[in-house]
């Protein structure tokens, strides 16, 4: 009795989501409100990204879904399965093969191309929420381009710790106009949003917002003149499997020896790298 429409959502809903996406592309970094639908997966589990994916996916698309850098994480698998069951599209783990990539908390290590769209899942779209609880007021602050609150937040961290302590979801200024949460990607990934070849879309299902960074948009991480923005550094550490150093690493503990070691966080990238070198597939 599986009588669900193509890509789950009814056509009117898809239309509305596409309109929100177009508005987001037209106003880079601006949070477009939309009437987020209830999805078969939990609010907070990527429903914003999923709605964007479902509104955009066509029969020709090749889909990749990643969660925290992994194609095989439970949530990535779940989302991929849902899209596949309701559309029948092809899926892949290879970044370069995908036309549509939905991701939670990472941008792939393989550079994206202009014929690809990256959809990021967003838990909290509002960069000013930490300093202003009221949605009514934050909307006004964006309208007036009043971002002292976001700067003050960073300043306070510098006062306390002599550096910014915002880990992931480090705020950026888009197109010299809107301050935006890039979703909880590590700072390591922030530079990838700037002047990106691919369109990047952000979906917050529970908070009912969609926003976008169109290709080749200037995106700067907020930083004071004398305290430049820094990405995570894994100094003196390398991926135990590939030996790579210029990638985001996961910290692991050896079950037997208790020793700490590191591996690439982007597992499909690691696999491709190994295959290219003719090394054995680690999975």
């Amino acid at each position, binding site marked *: 009795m599986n009588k669900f429409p193509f890509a789950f959502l009814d056509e009117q809903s898809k239309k509305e989501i596409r309109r929100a996406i177009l508005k987001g592309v037209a106003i880079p970094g601006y949070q477009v*409100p939309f*009437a987020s*639908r209830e999805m078969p997966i939990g609010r907070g589990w990527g429903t914003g990204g999923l709605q964007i994916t479902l509104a955009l996916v066509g029969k020709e698309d090749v889909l990749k879904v990643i969660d925290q850098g992994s194609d095989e*994480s439970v949530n990535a698998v779940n989302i991929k399965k849902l899209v596949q069951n309701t559309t029948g599209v092809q899926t892949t783990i290879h970044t370069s093969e995908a036309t549509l990539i939905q991701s939670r908390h990472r941008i792939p290590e393989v550079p994206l191309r202009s014929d690809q769209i990256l959809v990021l899942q967003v838990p909290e779209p509002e960069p000013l929420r930490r300093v202003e609880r009221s949605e009514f007021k934050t*909307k006004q602050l964006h309208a007036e381009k009043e971002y002292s609150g976001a700067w003050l937040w960073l300043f306070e961290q510098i006062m306390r710790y002599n*550096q910014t302590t915002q*880990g992931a979801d480090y705020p950026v200024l888009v197109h010299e106009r809107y301050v935006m949460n890039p979703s909880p990607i590590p700072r390591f990934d922030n530079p990838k949003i700037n002047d990106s070849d691919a369109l990047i879309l952000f979906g917050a299902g529970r908070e009912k917002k969609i926003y976008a960074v169109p290709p080749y948009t200037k995106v700067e991480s907020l930083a004071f003149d004398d305290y430049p923005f820094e990405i995570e550094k894994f100094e003196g550490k390398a991926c135990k499997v590939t030996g790579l150093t210029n990638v985001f690493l996961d910290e692991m503990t050896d079950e037997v020896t208790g020793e700490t070691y590191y591996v690439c966080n982007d597992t499909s990238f690691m696999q491709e790298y190994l295959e290219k070198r003719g090394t054995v597939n680690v999975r």
Partner: protein
Amino acid sequence: MGYVAVTGGQEAIEASLQHLSYERLKDGKFIDVQALKATMRGFLDQVMSESSLYSENLAALAMKQSEGNVEEAVFLLRAHRSTLPRLYYSTVTDAREMFVQRRISASFKDIPGGQILGASHDYLHRLLDFSLMEETEADVLAKKSEFEQMEVPEKSSLPLDHLPKVMDYLRNEGLINEFPLNDEEPDDVTKESLTFPSSRSERLQILTRGQTGAINSLGYAGLRGYGSSHPNVGEVRVGYQPIHIALDDDEDEYYIGSIKLTEVESFIPVNVSENGKEVLEFDIGYGACFGQNETKAIAMSILDHALENPENTPIHDEEFVLLQVDTVESTGFISHLKLPHYVTFQSKLEQVRKIKREGVPNE
């Protein structure tokens, strides 16, 4: 090597899902959806109200599928709702046309048409009835025919589908703050996202589909010093409300069925000035939900009035109330904490170590 805790996901998920299916079947017992529909009225009413989807069949199916988990059942129905095209809006319906099964007023003893107690748990001693442990289908049928042979003790003096409202009585006396009829198209929160300040139609929709427990708790807070509303329940009515639609190019309305509805009007005394004199009048707090959900509807009427009159306490704060009462949103976000947060945690860890290593100056 066991190096990434999140790989092998596909197989693990499949196994988990199979385990879940087995849990429902493992005792070899069976109950059919129609039996649930016939006997689980309270569950169905709560679930239909929270999912804002009126279908006893689907609610019973959701109950069966979710093994009686309210949170899951609402979730299933809400998700299903997203797949359904919405073709029509019903026309305005008036609760004066409700076929009333129960109607009580806590404000007046003698109301036109009388107090109609209907079926309610209110007058029950909450003692476990151990005879139900052994109840059989034959028992059910025997008791049923016994009931059906009883004489109806008393009939209402007025037709049950045209009972006047208690509020009309106060209104005729000029004791209710008069407002002009507002025939604006309501905003549909499922099609346009909520913005602040919100409209009353948006507030009422969000409250009526709010999680029963959340609405009750906030309404209760309103009575316990976090609100300034002290309502008298003017009228609670429960019954079947006829629903009509009108096609675009046609003025005729078509009857499409009736739904069980609880409607509450609370009277809240307020000061107003009239010709230079201070007088007391009544405001109305309004609550209405699918099914028989009386506590929720009363709590909703408290919140409706509180949000109409913003003040500096949480339950008078529209953003506080409206953004936290939705069951799918709150349970979804809380449960997402179970998802892996390895990257975000790694990013934080790197900084914590750096700060520990370098120390904080001036301290």
